[in-house]
């Protein structure tokens, strides 16, 4: 036991030493460039904009099936429901459009953003529920159904617009970004996986029957209809499920960690078009 502890202390000390040397100032634009270069170099045959199509950009066979399916996409019902819900006024007569810039149309690419009043990251899903609460309505579950339908519609009206996530000149925004990055690379759960273990190290590889999507552009396709779920899922649902699949206890949807993670992951995908709602096997 004491030998193990000594080993641990030594390992921690080594880790500290190594980072102290490599410690440099946070530099999000350089991060994003390195991140995007990594994927472009790893997959020279994949067109940059195609990364938003996840596994379909990596596997020709899946792509053929998907292209056929896209003529009749499985998210169509959710999209239609979302459109109706979005237009339907709340009990007080106001609508979602009143809560968002440009009436909520074509704005998906600007989410999440850093809210300087709250000092935290605000995601689209969070903004939608806050809009409901501000108008005296009950918030929706973050993982599926109504939330997925609403975000599906909002993504659809923004298709093709390029992600444009901003980090304002505010130390709290930079800190949120850095924390999101830390969450992305931190191993967790009994299986000792980080987000990066699958979506940076092994995109295009199989994990059981699935083909892993690249982290680059992974949020651009959200929300998604997953055949495995036989239904729609939001970004919250995707992250929560990733956690539990590595045998980590998921955090509350829209907890600070998840909001920061979404901020980081969206920022490094800046420049890629919105392709959501998406369909995945």
């Amino acid at each position, binding site marked *: 036991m004491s030998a193990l502890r000594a080993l641990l202390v030594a390992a921690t000390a080594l880790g500290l030493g190594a980072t102290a040397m490599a410690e440099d100032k946070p530099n999000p634009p350089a991060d994003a460039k390195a991140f995007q270069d990594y994927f472009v170099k790893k997959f020279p045959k994949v067109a940059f904009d195609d990364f938003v199509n996840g596994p379909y950009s990596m596997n020709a066979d899946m792509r053929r099936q998907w292209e056929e399916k896209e003529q*009749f996409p*499985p998210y*169509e*019902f959710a999209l239609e429901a979302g459109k109706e819900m979005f237009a339907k006024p709340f009990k007080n007569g106001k609508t979602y459009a009143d809560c968002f810039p440009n009436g909520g149309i074509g704005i998906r690419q600007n989410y999440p953003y850093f809210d300087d009043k709250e000092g935290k990251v605000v995601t689209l899903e969070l903004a939608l529920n806050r809009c409901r609460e501000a108008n005296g309505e009950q918030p929706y579950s973050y993982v599926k159904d109504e939330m997925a339908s609403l975000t599906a519609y909002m993504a659809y009206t923004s298709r093709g617009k390029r992600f444009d996530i901003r980090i304002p000149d505010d130390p709290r925004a930079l800190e949120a970004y850095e924390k999101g990055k830390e969450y992305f690379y931190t191993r967790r759960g009994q299986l000792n996986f980080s987000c990066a273990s699958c979506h940076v190290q092994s995109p295009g590889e199989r994990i059981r029957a699935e083909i892993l999507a690249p982290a680059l552009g992974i949020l651009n396709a959200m929300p998604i209809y997953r055949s495995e779920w*036989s239904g729609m899922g939001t970004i919250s649902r995707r992250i929560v499920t990733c956690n539990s699949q590595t045998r980590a206890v998921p955090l509350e949807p829209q907890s600070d960690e998840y909001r920061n993670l979404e901020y980081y992951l969206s920022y490094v995908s800046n420049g890629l078009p919105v392709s959501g709602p998406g369909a995945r096997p």
Partner: protein
Amino acid sequence: MASSIRVRAILNGENAEVQTLIQHPMDTGLVKDAKGELIPAHYIQQLTFTHKDKTVFLADWGTAVSKDPYVKFAFKGAAKGDELKVSWVDNKGATDSLTATIQ
């Protein structure tokens, strides 16, 4: 409520290519809900496509078909502008139908 059926029928040479997506839970009766209670079976039993009073496609379905099923087939003998009627009936006696125009 919008129709539970989506149809696209396109004439390609002598073949009318038909694609359909139907919104239906297709519960098998074997799955439990969050409270641990069985969700009763609820599935489409028969799906029919009719062109000029003639059934061109008939499917007898059971619980093995997925939720929100998708069907694709082709048939001969149709012309542009013809009507194609789609209808289903499920094990609870519910039914829905839609008439599409072949394009």
